[in-house]
């Protein structure tokens, strides 16, 4: 008979699916590398304004595992720094989108069939009906192209998904006996929305947030691919891919490695997302 600790239980639940552990490893690796890029990257100065045509267009080698780009900059180091803007975009967008979207969804769902519900959900429908990438492109092209505006643009088109998600859950949860019990005791609406209903949505919301990190980063890469995100000389994964695409197929490493980095981020968060869902499920270990 073994010991049963709280952390141990969490790990047991999480590790039932080995892929989740892989996802956790990938994400931790990326976060570590992004946080400590100035110390971990072999050539940190290459992430800024640096030019050395003598070292340009070198294929992958021991000193430059991802090769160098047209300006002679080490691609591996630039990828590490690019992770920073990617992760930052993901975090900022979610930090804005989740509170707004979830609150609207809770309110609309609980007060279903009131004017509040109709108003909120129709606005949500409107935002959802515009193709997301088009909306993001439209916004960023009107404003100055930089990371901040890219984050704003993605936020504007991302919040409705959370509203929809939580709306569905709130409409069914409000009929649960424990919600009725709280109402019958005389609890305030604030309490019912945020202390009774919301905790039952957290598992799904967290899973979606984890998956969304990958997707937001991907959209961010798409925006920087067309030049509407983080501006040079700061490195961004999408920009690196578009710059490198011009040199295909001879200097293939310039596009392929940043592309693989994008894929790795999305994969990592997707795998982790599955595990997060398991972690918060109500079953006992």
């Amino acid at each position: 008979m073994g010991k049963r600790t709280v952390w141990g239980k969490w790990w047991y639940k999480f590790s039932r699916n080995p892929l989740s552990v892989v996802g956790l490893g990938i994400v931790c690796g990326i976060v570590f590398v992004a946080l400590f890029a100035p110390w971990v990257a072999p050539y940190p100065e290459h992430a800024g304004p640096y030019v050395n045509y003598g070292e340009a267009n070198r294929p992958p080698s021991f000193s430059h595992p991802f090769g160098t780009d047209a300006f002679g900059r080490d691609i591996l180091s630039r990828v590490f720094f690019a992770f920073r803007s990617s992760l930052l975009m993901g975090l900022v967008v979610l930090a804005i989108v989740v509170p707004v979207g979830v609150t609207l969804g809770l309110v609309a769902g609980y007060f279903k069939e009131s004017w509040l519900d109709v108003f909120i959900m129709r606005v949500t429908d409107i935002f959802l009906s515009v193709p997301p990438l088009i909306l993001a492109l439209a916004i960023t092209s009107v404003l100055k192209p930089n990371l901040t505006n890219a984050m704003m643009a993605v936020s504007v088109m991302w919040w409705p998904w959370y509203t929809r998600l939580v709306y569905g859950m709130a409409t069914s949860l409000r009929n649960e006996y424990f919600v009725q019990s709280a109402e019958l005791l005389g609890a305030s609406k604030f309490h019912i929305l945020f202390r009774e209903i919301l905790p039952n949505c957290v598992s799904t919301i967290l899973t979606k947030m984890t998956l969304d990190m990958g997707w937001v980063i991907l959209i961010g890469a798409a925006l920087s691919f067309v030049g509407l995100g983080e501006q040079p000389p700061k490195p961004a994964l999408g920009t690196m891919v578009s710059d490198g695409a011009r040199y295909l197929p001879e200097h293939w490493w310039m596009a392929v490695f940043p592309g693989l980095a994008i894929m790795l981020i999305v994969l990592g968060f997707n795998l982790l997302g599955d595990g997060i869902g398991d972690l918060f499920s109500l079953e006992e270990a």
Partner: protein
Amino acid sequence: MSQPLLELQDLSVHFRVYGGYLRVLDGVNFRVAPQEKVGLVGETGCGKTTTMKTIMRILPQPPGIVRGGKILFKGKEVLRMDTGEVEQMRRREIAMIFQDPTAALNPVFTIGEQLFDAIRYATGKETDHRFLHEVAVRALEEVALPDPARILTNYPIQLSGGMRQRVCIALALACPKELLIADEPGTSLDVTIQDQILRLIHRLAEERKMAVILISHSLGVIRDWTERVWVMYAGTIVEEAETQELFARPLHPYTQALLRCVPKLTGEGIAKGIPGRIPDYFDPPSGCRFHPRCPYRMEVCSREKPRLYGTSSHQVACFLYQEGKR
């Protein structure tokens, strides 16, 4: 005694969980004779459903693990059967009906489609539609459902709870079986409907010379509809007897306490319940699993596990009655 139809010998089943095992079944001994109507009584969590699932080989393994013991059906070892034999057993020999008829029926298929499937599997005969229809109608008539032809075209949602339970019985018994396992039949239905369902099961069992395992937590139901009762507590059988005998002279302290807790029509009030709670299977009590809650416990009860001991009409697993102590 002639060979029992179904026999469990010292069956032990554990579940792998975080940090160890849940030792749910701890040496279960159980027997059903051919055509016998047997009751299995026990409260929530005592392991009755786990036992039935292990018999039918539908226990998910992992996390379930059979740690020991044997299950013999008509002399063959169930746990060693290959897939083909298990399927044969489920299609032709043992039938099972569950507590909630609504959950047991697939809501997106008609009754007819589900019944045809059951018949096909049971008879192994192929898809002569007219034959299937005939057998299906007869099956529905057997369970006293009016207008069977129309019911075949209905979806489960269009029927009442009692009718759904009858359909489940028809599905289970579409072709003759030797053993019917009925897990809390009619419990979710009204008492008059439950009465009809139990009556129906009894009639079918008599007509088809079928044995029945009636699982229930209602002692009254067990008393009315069984010939022999097995009382289960915390993964082990604590007492078994012919039904009349058990209710007239309950021996095990748990059985006695349980009977005292049943509300009586005579209105004499209800006992205060049994102190303590059901054991934690992760760290179960040593020796007799009931001893922490037993008013008569002795020193030996926490050391050794008592075995079933007694006559052919009444056995009890309790040190109060062993070695001539009482």
